[in-house]
């Protein structure tokens, strides 16, 4: 086999190695996307669970504020709602209530904002945000 042929073969192998690396990279990206999807679903479900809990206390203003009124700072362990998902991620939520105002049709209520974070490398990264109206009991 001459030098020219050897070089050509080497070039072919390098090309295939690059292709192979790209395929492996695509595979890793796909796995990462799958994990991200699971984490996103966990965050969305946790946010909805928090909303369900807020609704469950909506008949009792005092209990509502006692349970959720001070959950406004995700960096402070006493001011966030923590949850560990089935897949092992640490999730946290903060809740903010607006002042009671008149909503549509003369009904009073508050706008509630729920933010969901996930702990990643000691930092809380925002994953989901909800905003909804909580009608006050007449």
């Amino acid at each position, binding site marked *: *086999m001459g030098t020219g042929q050897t070089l050509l073969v080497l070039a072919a192998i390098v090309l*295939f190695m690059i292709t192979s690396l790209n395929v492996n990279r*695509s595979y890793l990206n796909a796995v990462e996307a799958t994990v991200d*999807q*699971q984490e996103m679903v966990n965050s969305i479900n946790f946010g909805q669970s928090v909303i*369900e809990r807020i609704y469950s206390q909506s008949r009792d203003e005092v209990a509502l504020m006692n349970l959720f009124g001070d959950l406004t700072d995700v960096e402070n362990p006493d001011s966030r709602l923590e949850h560990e998902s*089935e897949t092992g991620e640490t999730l946290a939520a903060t809740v903010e209530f607006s002042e009671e105002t008149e909503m549509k049709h003369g009904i009073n209520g508050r706008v509630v904002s729920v933010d969901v974070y996930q702990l990643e490398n000691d930092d809380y990264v925002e994953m989901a945000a909800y905003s909804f109206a909580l009608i006050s009991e007449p």
Partner: protein
Amino acid sequence: MNITIDLLIPPIIIALLIGMIFSTNALVMESTVENRLSYELQSTANTVLTVIEQEVRGIKEIVNLETDQLQFIDAASDTVTIFRDEMSMMVETSSAPGSPEQYNARLYELNFDLAGVTGSPPILRVSIITESRAEQEVGTRPNRYRAVSERDIYLRNLHIAQL
């Protein structure tokens, strides 16, 4: 010596190339199947959760609560039982006894738990884990793919009935 190397190198190179082509194809196939499976498993877990949420919204009374079985009386006063049968979720109502609705949910785990303490509003915690089957996958690896969906559901009717 030179002649021997000249004879040996081409088949080795061809074998290497063939090996790389096959392994690349196998990886692409595995990745494609894995993507499809994980998406399907996650969608199924979310859909099952939605079905359960719709079923339990109208709970007037919980008759029996076990880890993988929930029996309750709904808003129409029917007794409804949600339970797991192998990989399927079954929903049986007293209006159609013996012929439960079967959901091909690929269940690995179905958990019900009444969260909260006595006197607090009733919150039902539902946790679902779906799992793939060996015949849906590429190759013969022993590990299966799974997806998780869990949520707390406020049982408003039951809460009002308790007030």
